[in-house]
């Protein structure tokens, strides 16, 4: 039976962030994970940003190591998603009527591919999907993740946040656009392995309260912290 106690708190037990100014060559398996991991090398820049921030958040929560798969989900909000890779990929389709279409790039023309990569690498089997919206504040992703956690007995934790590579030149980035990836780990209780960065509640208007204030941007939680 579906049930959700909206009055219960949700704890932020891990935070991870990577700025969109980070060079692709800085986002390697050796530098991020600390060990060789072949699939990392095939990922596009957008996926490396998202994967890295998710990994940093789980590491901060003391949850990056695993032996059996865990019911942990990822919900990411994005404005442009994989659009940069979409353009690179279609450049392989256009000449010669598709004869040189890149299957390797095609796999990364979905914005959720990095979450699939993270699930494989980190053994995550929970709810995973992308939310496309017009701003990078991440509140929709956070609310959705809080709902998922509070309504599920089996879900161990949720990772949520925002991910965007720098906006393509043709698209003017609005004031609410953030280039980079910001993720946080949410649990129903303060983790015993990682830090506790505070707790979140829903108020009666279904707004999120953080430090007794209405949260309007997840950057208020993440942006001033040293991560990674």
């Amino acid at each position, binding site marked *: 039976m579906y049930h959700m106690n909206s009055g219960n708190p949700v704890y932020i037990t891990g935070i991870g962030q990577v700025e969109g100014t980070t060079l692709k060559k800085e986002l390697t398996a050796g530098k991020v994970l600390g060990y060789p991991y072949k699939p990392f090398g095939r990922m596009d820049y957008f996926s490396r940003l998202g994967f890295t921030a998710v990994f940093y958040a789980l590491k901060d929560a003391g949850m990056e190591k695993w032996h059996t798969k865990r019911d942990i989900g990822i919900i990411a909000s994005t404005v442009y998603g994989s659009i940069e890779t979409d353009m690179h990929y279609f450049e392989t389709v256009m000449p010669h009527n598709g004869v040189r279409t890149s299957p390797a790039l095609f796999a990364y023309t979905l914005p959720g591919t990095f979450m699939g990569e993270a699930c494989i690498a980190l053994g995550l089997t929970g709810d*995973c999907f992308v939310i*496309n*919206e017009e701003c990078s504040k991440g509140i929709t992703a956070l609310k959705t993740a809080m709902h998922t956690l509070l309504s599920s007995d089996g879900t161990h934790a949720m990772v949520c946040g925002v991910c965007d590579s720098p906006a393509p030149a043709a698209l003017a980035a609005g004031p609410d656009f953030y280039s980079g990836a910001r993720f946080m780990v949410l649990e129903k209780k303060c983790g015993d392995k990682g830090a506790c960065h505070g707790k979140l509640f829903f108020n009666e208007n279904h707004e999120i309260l953080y430090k007794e204030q209405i949260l309007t941007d997840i950057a208020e939680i993440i942006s001033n912290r040293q991560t990674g």
Partner: protein
Amino acid sequence: MEAGAIVMNQVWITDAAAVTSLGGDIDETWINILSGKSGIGKLNRFPCHNYVSDLAACINFIDAPSDDSFLKAIAGHLVSHLSVVPGDALLFTATTKSCIDNLEKIQRGMDLSPLDVPCSSIPRFISERLGLADRGININAACASSTIALIQACTAIASGRTQCALVCGLDMVSEFVFAGFSSIGAMSPSPARPFDPAAKGMTLGEGGAALLLMSRDRAEKENRLPLTGICGWGIANDAAHITAPARDGSGLIKAVQKALGTASINPQDIGAVSAHGTGTVYNDAMELTAFKHIFAQQIPLVNSIKGAIGHTLGAAGAIEAALGIYMLEKQLLLPTAGFQVSHEGVQNIVNNVPMPFAGDYLLSTNSGFGGINAAIIMSKAGSK
């Protein structure tokens, strides 16, 4: 909603519309699939000679604008077939590549606004068209997008966050996507044959469906009758492979088990399954493995409509739910076009003719790239 309250509102589907290669509404699509027709035909939207297939299930009765996306024309058609949508409805769309034809045109040198390329352009378009207060969000989860959008609408209503939500799933046939599926070897040179051992891959299709969901209380206040309910839902990731499903069906098994748990029913209560059934060898084998595990020796009747209307990607779950309303009401499972022979060990569960079934619950499942699986359980009007 009062903070601290435990709420679990019943979710009803009170209105629905669909457009596919086989019809401009649910009735027409239903009749055509039921009578064994196929929407799959020769594709002439772009040159196909370098691809594995030259077949797709395209909508040929809606004009494609030369200076804008065909997906908007599909969206416009879809919402024009709905009755009144309350202005306070939350909006969840589901599309994998949105107005990707506009990106193609821009990259080929056409002077078009790039602002319609991001996936958020579709909820914005539908919200403005219907005059909704909510700008909406798009759910992007590969071929499970629509089902996950339905689940987000269901949880929003069940938890009391809203009383009303509109879900629109839609995708189109584009060279962008066609070339990609051809390049990874997922496409069949002949029409797809879901759940048949001779299946060689999928056939792409296009279309959309819109479903208006309401809490039972709100629907009763507005004198709206339930078409069906949605009483169970679940999502799970395989954590196994980026473009192939887990061979053991573990993610789909978990998603269905979550859905059964939400609905508080047993596997034996499921009357029939509207499966993903893409016609790719790995997907179909994975689903049959999962169904064997979930239902043991008593697998209910299973179908896939992708042999008739193609694989409509992010729209698939919404279209299947729209047709699921009719399947539950009429207690009749649509035929699986293209199917001829059963896999060993799973005889008599799939057929290429309509199959009557008895039961109050229809399970609908979808799986996609990134290892994502989603399941909903639809309940016959008047039951849960």
